[in-house]
């Protein structure tokens, strides 16, 4: 087997080196290959991305934090203190073999007891760890890249989502979006200047901060997907690709694609054989410049146009459906709202709702909002009902998703969708379609373009409306749990097309 290891101690002189030597000797004697990165004063150069990719497991023999630990996120791991590696390296190597075979992570526990493989699918095994066993699979590698991007994105979603929800909650959800607190030309406006209440003004400030946090979401997702693929050189092209995805209206799915492409581009650049001065210039000049240019050109020149064309086609098609079967319309709008959560398809459905609002049809807007609320709500419910199916970052995102869902901030579902698009997005679409159809079927109406639960006062048939949302939430959660459990039981046989 091939292992990688990181050893590290606070002074980085003695123990990290001894642990490294001990692991190297023990692994070689047991007939395995190992590459060790010593992090510390003397240190060794960082391990190659390719070496890490091809490893079967990672051993952390550390008394200090591991630098850039994300690099190893896809590997089964054994985590111990340096001294354990020094004293019992052969046993540690055996544990690494067991971890690699089992494909599960183990950590911490000292002494001989820890050498016993954890039984089956115990509670210590989260879903992310349980799938890392087939890390060889291309699909699992993609999933790891997506997870890395998602884990960096979540703080932005949480901050943006809660600030936005707070703005809607403390004041009139419609009024607050129409207050401009700051312009470049005229600077800050105070409540007196704008003739609005202080509380509405505070809401507007929260909203503008939350909006900026939200606008970072797709770029950060793309940037750190590329980072997971190509290390640091991936970040700049990925971030720029993500910003452009937003720019051309391609939403978070565009961001996913931008991140994956940017990572692939930088990895391709890395394979160009160069030497001497040029080699030194690659990371400082070539990767960022050519990588960013290439991803930018792809987004603007190649991907932008079809996205715009598809948007227009969807829009005219949807407009043509006005007056058609209400239930069918509800299903369709619902599914569209959940498809890309703030992306182009979602925007078409939302714009259709606004258009209908202007035309005096208040039922469509109600369906749009309900369908936009169930994705985060359904996922939040799923994380509570089946904790084990979700990773730790997802649990945190799930807590914030309650508030976001209730506030019609569909983006709260994006972390889940980005991490596992092929299972999560269809589930969200089913739940939202059900909710959209029910809302229209119940004849609920809404005269505000946003606000979620906070505009309940202007909803016609509020109780039935809430019922539609609750049903959609439960359907969403059930579908997510169903699809995710499917993978769990049949995980080895079932490759994820990606």
């Amino acid at each position, binding site marked *: 087997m091939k292992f990688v290891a990181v050893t590290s101690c*606070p*002074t*980085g*002189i*003695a*123990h990290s*080196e*001894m642990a*490294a*030597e*001990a692991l190297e*000797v023990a692994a070689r004697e047991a007939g395995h290959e190992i590459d060790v990165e*010593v992090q510390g*004063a*003397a240190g060794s150069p960082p391990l190659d991305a390719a070496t890490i990719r091809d490893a079967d497991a990672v051993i952390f023999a550390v*008394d200090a934090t591991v630098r850039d630990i994300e690099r190893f996120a896809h590997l089964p791991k054994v985590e111990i203190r340096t*001294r*354990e590696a*020094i*004293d*019992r*390296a052969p046993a540690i190597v055996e544990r690494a073999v067991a971890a690699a075979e089992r494909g599960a992570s183990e950590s911490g526990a*000292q002494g001989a007891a820890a050498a016993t493989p954890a039984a089956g699918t115990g509670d210590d095994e989260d879903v992310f760890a349980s799938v890392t066993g087939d890390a060889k699979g291309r699909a699992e590698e993609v999933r790891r890249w997506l997870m890395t991007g998602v884990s960096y994105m979540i703080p932005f979603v949480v901050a943006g989502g809660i600030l936005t929800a707070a703005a809607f909650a403390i004041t009139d959800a419609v009024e607050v979006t129409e207050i401009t607190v700051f312009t470049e030309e005229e600077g800050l406006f105070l409540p007196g200047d704008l003739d609005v209440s202080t509380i509405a003004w505070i809401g507007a400030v929260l909203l503008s901060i939350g909006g900026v946090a939200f606008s970072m979401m797709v770029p950060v997702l793309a940037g750190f997907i590329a980072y997971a693929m190509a290390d640091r050189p991936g970040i700049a092209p990925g971030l720029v690709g993500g910003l452009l995805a937003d720019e051309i209206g391609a939403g978070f799915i565009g961001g996913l694609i931008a991140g994956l492409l940017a990572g692939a581009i930088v990895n391709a650049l890395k394979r160009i054989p160069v030497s001497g001065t040029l080699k030194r210039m690659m990371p400082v000049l070539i990767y960022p410049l050519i990588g960013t240019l290439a991803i930018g050109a792809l987004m603007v020149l190649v991907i932008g146009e079809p996205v715009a064309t598809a948007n227009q086609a969807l829009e005219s098609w949807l407009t043509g459906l006005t007056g058609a079967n209400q239930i069918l319309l509800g299903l369709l709008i619902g599914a569209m709202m959940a498809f890309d959560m703030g992306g182009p398809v979602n925007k078409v459905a939302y714009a259709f709702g606004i258009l209908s609002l202007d035309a005096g049809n208040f039922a469509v807007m109600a369906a749009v909002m309900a369908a936009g609320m169930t994705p985060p709500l359904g996922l939040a419910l799923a994380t509570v009902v089946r904790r084990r199916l979700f990773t730790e970052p997802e649990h945190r995102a799930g807590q914030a998703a309650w508030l976001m869902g209730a506030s019609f901030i569909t983006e709260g579902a994006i972390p889940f969708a980005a991490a596992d698009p092929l299972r999560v997005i269809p589930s969200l679409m089913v739940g939202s379609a059900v909710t959209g159809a029910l809302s229209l079927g119940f004849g609920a109406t809404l005269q505000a373009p946003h606000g979620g639960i906070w505009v309940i006062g202007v909803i016609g048939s509020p109780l039935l409306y809430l019922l539609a949302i609750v049903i959609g939430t439960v359907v969403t959660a059930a579908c997510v749990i169903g699809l995710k459990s499917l993978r769990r039981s049949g995980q080895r046989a079932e490759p994820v097309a990606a």
Partner: protein
Amino acid sequence: MTTISDLITPALVTTDLAATDTRTAIDELAQLFEADGRVTDRTAYVETVWAREQETGGTGMESGIAIPHGKSGAVARPGLAFGRSRHGLDFGAEDGTPADLIFLIAATEGDDDLHVRVLSRIARRLIHESFRMALREADSPASVVEIIEQEVEL
């Protein structure tokens, strides 16, 4: 260029530590540094090393080695002192094995130069049983230094 001979000399070796407790043993080896002009403020240096021992639960290993070390402003020149103990000293090895081979490292503040590599190299060799055996059997400070020099080819 730092070589192993710059770091350890027979003057920094004792094959029979008098101390019967850990802290005194560290002080005893630190005296060798002080006498050699490598450590200017012994009390401060020993305090640094001791604090680190306390913090990490000890640098003792099951193979009977301990590598107490300290990076301190009290160190004028980096060095490596070696002491062998008949008594065995408690450096907090996981299984309680007393340490009989004690390497005390003195590193200068902010120094991550070649001597760090030298010390790292020694640390790496200590994993090997043959090295430890030779150190246990060496009959004089000069032969200890010779063994270390041989083992740590630079």
